């Protein structure tokens, strides 16, 4: 069962599934604690701040044990960010209640100097995305930029920023990139696979 899903996952996303955490490929072979430690070291526990002012350690409070879908925005964005965020709300709505509870939506600022927690909150509200289980993260610019770099999405040129989504089953170290042209139902399918992966032995 587990293997089949892995195959499906890799086939569905053939070119776009990229394991950005190469060292974690074998995470399942390590002890849980050791794997987590490794992942924590990679992703760091840099402090980020949610739209509600909560201070979160990136690995322990945001990633650990979760299925996450990560997007990147800046609140002044006139282009892709609002569209992408609307897509994400559609995706969320398409998920069943039970599925939604198991998936953490994470939206990270690409412009932490300007994106105060209050600005992130406003952006979330504007896009009807200020919901339970959806974090809009900013923080000290050094921290935020380090995290976006780790996730391969840092940019100096905001207008040219990535609209790639990252989705992961962090527990199993399955990381995938989802390009912007995948329709919402396609994204939903991938998220379901990631969630089911969790239940696997």
């Amino acid at each position, binding site marked *: 069962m587990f293997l089949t899903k892995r195959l499906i996952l890799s086939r569905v996303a053939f070119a776009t599934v990229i394991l950005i955490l190469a060292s974690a490929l074998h995470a399942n072979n390590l002890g849980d604690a050791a794997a987590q430690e490794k992942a924590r070291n990679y992703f760091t526990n840099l402090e980020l*701040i949610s739209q509600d*002012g909560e*201070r979160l350690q990136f690995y322990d409070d945001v990633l650990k044990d979760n299925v996450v879908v990560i997007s990147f925005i800046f609140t*002044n964005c006139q282009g892709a960010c609002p569209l992408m965020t609307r897509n994400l709300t559609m995706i969320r709505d398409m998920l069943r209640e039970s599925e939604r509870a198991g998936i953490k939506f994470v939206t990270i600022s690409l412009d*932490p*100097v*300007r994106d*105060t*927690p*209050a*600005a992130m909150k406003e952006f979330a509200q504007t896009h009807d995305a200020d919901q339970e289980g959806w974090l809009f993260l900013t*923080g*000290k*610019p050094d921290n935020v930029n380090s995290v976006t770099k780790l996730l391969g999405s840092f940019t*100096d040129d*905001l*207008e040219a920023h990535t609209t790639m989504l990252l989705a992961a089953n962090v527990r199993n170290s399955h990381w995938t990139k989802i390009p912007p042209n995948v329709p919402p139902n396609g994204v939903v399918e991938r998220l379901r696979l990631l969630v089911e992966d969790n239940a696997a032995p």
Partner: protein
Amino acid sequence: MRRRDLRNGAVAASVSRRAAAALLLTVFAGLASSVVTPTSTSVASSAIAAEPAPADERGQYIYTEGKSRSNRVITAVLRRGEAPVPAAILPCGSCHGTDGRGAADYSGVAPLNINWYALAQAGKHEHGARLHTAFDEQSIARAIIDGVDPDGNALDSTMPRYNMSDEDMADLIAYLKAVDSQADPGIGPTSIRIGTVLPMEGQLAGMGEAMRDTIEAYFSTVNAAGGVHGRRLELVIGSWGANDDPPIWPARDLVDKELPFALVSGYVPNYDAEFAALSAEKSIPLIGPYTALLPLDGADDNDEDSDEAGNKRFSFYAVSGLAEEAQVLVEAVAAEMVPGQTRVAVVYPQVQSFDALAESARDRAAELGFRSATVSAYWYGQFDSAATVAQLRDEQVDAVVFLGSAEELLQLGRAAERAGWLPYLLSPGLLAESQVFDLPKSFSGRVLLSYASLPTDYTPEGSAEFEKLHDDFSFEYRYSMAQIAAYTSAKIAVEGLERAGRSLSREELVQALEGLQDYHPGLVPPISFGPDRRIGALGAHIVRVDLAAGRFDESTQWIDLGTASDAN
């Protein structure tokens, strides 16, 4: 006890150490990680509701459209004896302008300024040579309906006579009272909201409070004397320091939520460029932020709006920062020695924007025609004085412009003396003052410090006013440098607001500030801005250190950068 500083002409007393130390946090980013305790960024304020009353809005519709929201008929008689026409053909705003100030020329006539402030003052509202008594609500209604002023004289015949219901007239008058405050945020009929950003919590809270108290004290005296053109100054504060969130956040939240008309003073260490970029992005005047690193070049390198022309227009700085001081130091070398026979070196730590700072000093040296001008950088905290001395001596450097710390300058001086090499040593006083008297005596007369301002700049009136503020409001005076900066910024802002006039807009304020020439705020050198000039006192004092006597030379020299072709 530190009030002595004010009266004391001694240069040595010029820098309040605490404030200087705080300013240096700006300079050496590495030191700036300071504060803890997790609570979220707050915007402290005494918010005032700026919601226009519905009557205003209905009145605005009448003013601009000539129609009533209630669909009651409003008519206008354009020429005497003619039949009434819908007022929509010639609504108030079509001649008097959306801001009520009147067009300069409208088909040969000059519609008047109908701001309530002008209307409600006797003699302010001119009809040619004729001055009349002040309008009130009844007489303005008569003017609109019957075309007569409060003294019964007929208005110009080009002013239509309107007919409308009492309700619509009341709405229109409500709007007239507010028409001049519609343009920019933060202006009310009787108030101007001014924002500032300060550390009100954490390690620097004392300094933040001292700066706030100074600004509030000065604003209070202005308000007590009737405010600025009838408007009271209100201060709203974006506070940081409770945690290590970027200080630029409360600045942004302040501008977004409190909608201040302008930003005055403020201390946003390590985010000076972002502070200026915020001012540019929101077109909000920023007057005199407290910093030693003025982000005049590349202020918006990371700003996607950087293509927009003139987006740095909104930031004004009272006095020079380290970059300008470094250029002044190079000028000082040229004044001491013949540039063509002199080799000058700029030595600096690689922190923050010091690369650009050193480059600007070297560029200045190149312009002045020095025999050679080099820069030499070292890693912050890893200054190797012996190696630096060996290198510079090999290059036969005659003068060193040193931009490191006081301790490092001392190391440099001692190593140079050991090597039997005695170049001129020049450094900003802000960086070097604290240990400069420990330099080897053999350098006496060869050590020059720069200061953006000195107690010698105090005018008697400035000193008296500042001390009166201190007495009347008994604010803390432990951070004299920061407080003088805050006071200076508040004074410049008020001067600009006074000159901008009652019909205030941010653009008017920017233009008024650009018009400041030789304005003396009292405790710093005279301030001049201009269309291409954003540093008020563009230059610095040069002070010679008498190491033998252990004091500063009494005579100081002001070197002005404003007259140079590439000022700023």
